[in-house]
């Protein structure tokens, strides 16, 4: 039978855990807001770039470029975006499960991986995948330079025909509670998705532009930029989703700690009362026996 002191000690320990989870929740909420703002701020560039790319592609009768070349998919590279740290609920588990699903679906092909984020790196390394490179400690503050590094690496490999396709697997921020797991084909660049810029761009892709540089040269510059922005977007989305998941996880942890404290307090009071009752009975029976 645990004594009163044991209960007090446990309650104190749960309380301090609760304080930590509550603080982590607030930190995650603040970071989430920043991540969301960054994701929002990056949108105009991506939208305008997609528009310019689309209009340039439509001008060239048969666009030819190493990054557009379609080859049979034998050697596949996947960029997997996870979190840097745990304590984010099922965030990392989910994205890694999605990645494993993807790998199973491409059994027999030559697979290689570029993990972004420490959690994914650790897990994928342990699973014995061929890591071409790894990017860790880059998601705390998402920078364009990182997206560019990754993009340069994969476009180089692709142009040299060392890989046949590149996919990116990441969590897309939906709401604080939910994230979509997304597998997107990065290379070869397929016809740029319509609709992405249609809302803002209107019909301007029909405009007959003067091209200062030859279209092919422009395309050569535009395509790598497009890949960069795709990677940047994925990083921003993933980082927002991670903070969202952590916030939710920490909130429910705080709530659970509250429940535990309540249950323990109730129990403790019962034990205290039982002890008092016992003492009274002892006194009463002692008194009656002497009377």
């Amino acid at each position: 039978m645990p004594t009163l002191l044991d209960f007090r000690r446990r309650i104190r320990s749960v309380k301090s855990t609760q304080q930590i989870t509550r603080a982590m929740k607030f930190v995650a909420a603040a970071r989430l807001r920043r991540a969301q703002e960054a994701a929002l701020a990056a949108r105009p560039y991506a939208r305008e770039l997609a528009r310019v790319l689309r209009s340039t592609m439509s001008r060239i009768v048969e666009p030819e470029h190493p990054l557009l070349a379609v080859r049979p998919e034998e050697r596949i590279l996947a960029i997997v975006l996870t979190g840097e740290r745990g304590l984010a609920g099922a965030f990392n588990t989910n994205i890694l499960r999605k990645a494993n699903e993807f790998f199973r679906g491409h059994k027999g092909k030559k697979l290689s991986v570029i993990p972004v984020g420490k959690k994914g790196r650790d897990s994928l390394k342990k699973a014995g995948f061929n890591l071409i490179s790894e990017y860790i400690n880059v998601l705390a503050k998402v920078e364009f330079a990182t997206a560019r590094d990754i993009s340069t690496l994969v476009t180089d490999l692709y142009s040299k025909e060392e890989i046949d396709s590149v996919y990116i697997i990441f969590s897309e921020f939906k709401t604080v509670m939910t994230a979509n797991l997304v597998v997107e084909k990065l290379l070869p660049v397929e016809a740029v998705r319509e609709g992405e810029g249609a809302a803002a761009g209107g019909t301007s892709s029909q405009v007959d532009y003067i091209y200062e540089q030859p279209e092919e040269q422009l395309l050569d510059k535009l395509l790598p930029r497009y890949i960069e922005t795709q990677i940047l977007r994925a990083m921003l989305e993933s980082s927002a989703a991670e903070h969202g998941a952590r916030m939710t996880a920490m909130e429910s942890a705080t709530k659970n700690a509250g429940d535990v404290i309540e249950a323990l307090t109730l129990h403790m009071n019962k034990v205290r009362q039982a002890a008092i009752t016992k003492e009274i009975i002892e006194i009463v029976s002692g008194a009656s026996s002497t009377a």
Partner: protein
Amino acid sequence: MLPESIELIVVTPERQLLRQRTKEVQLPGADGYLGILPGHAPLITELGIGELSYHDMSGKESVHLAVLRGFAEVLPDRVTVLAETAEFAADIDIARAEAAKARAEKRLASGDTNIDWDRVTVALQRALIRIQVARKYRGVPVDSR
């Protein structure tokens, strides 16, 4: 009828820097500077490393930005600049740019054959343009030494 003004939009991968109505815009195209007035024919160009400037609606004040590579789309009433990096002259940290310039010059002078020439020359150009734009804006002669 020609439009009266141009809407100038400057975006970088990280954020939208500027969205404003202007009378005149000058862009550092990859093959030379372009001056854009309202009603310009639609045009797409690659950007070089240089200075972007525009006159506000009164036509008196001009604002300068250091712009590094990217693209620009010109429409009769709109100019969209997709720059890799863009900075207002007032935001440029001259000390940092000077340090970058010194670093790049040192590397170029080192005679090391292993250096990435492209990268170093771009770094140097970029430092130079940032210093130039920042100085001009702050009223310091461009070549003060």
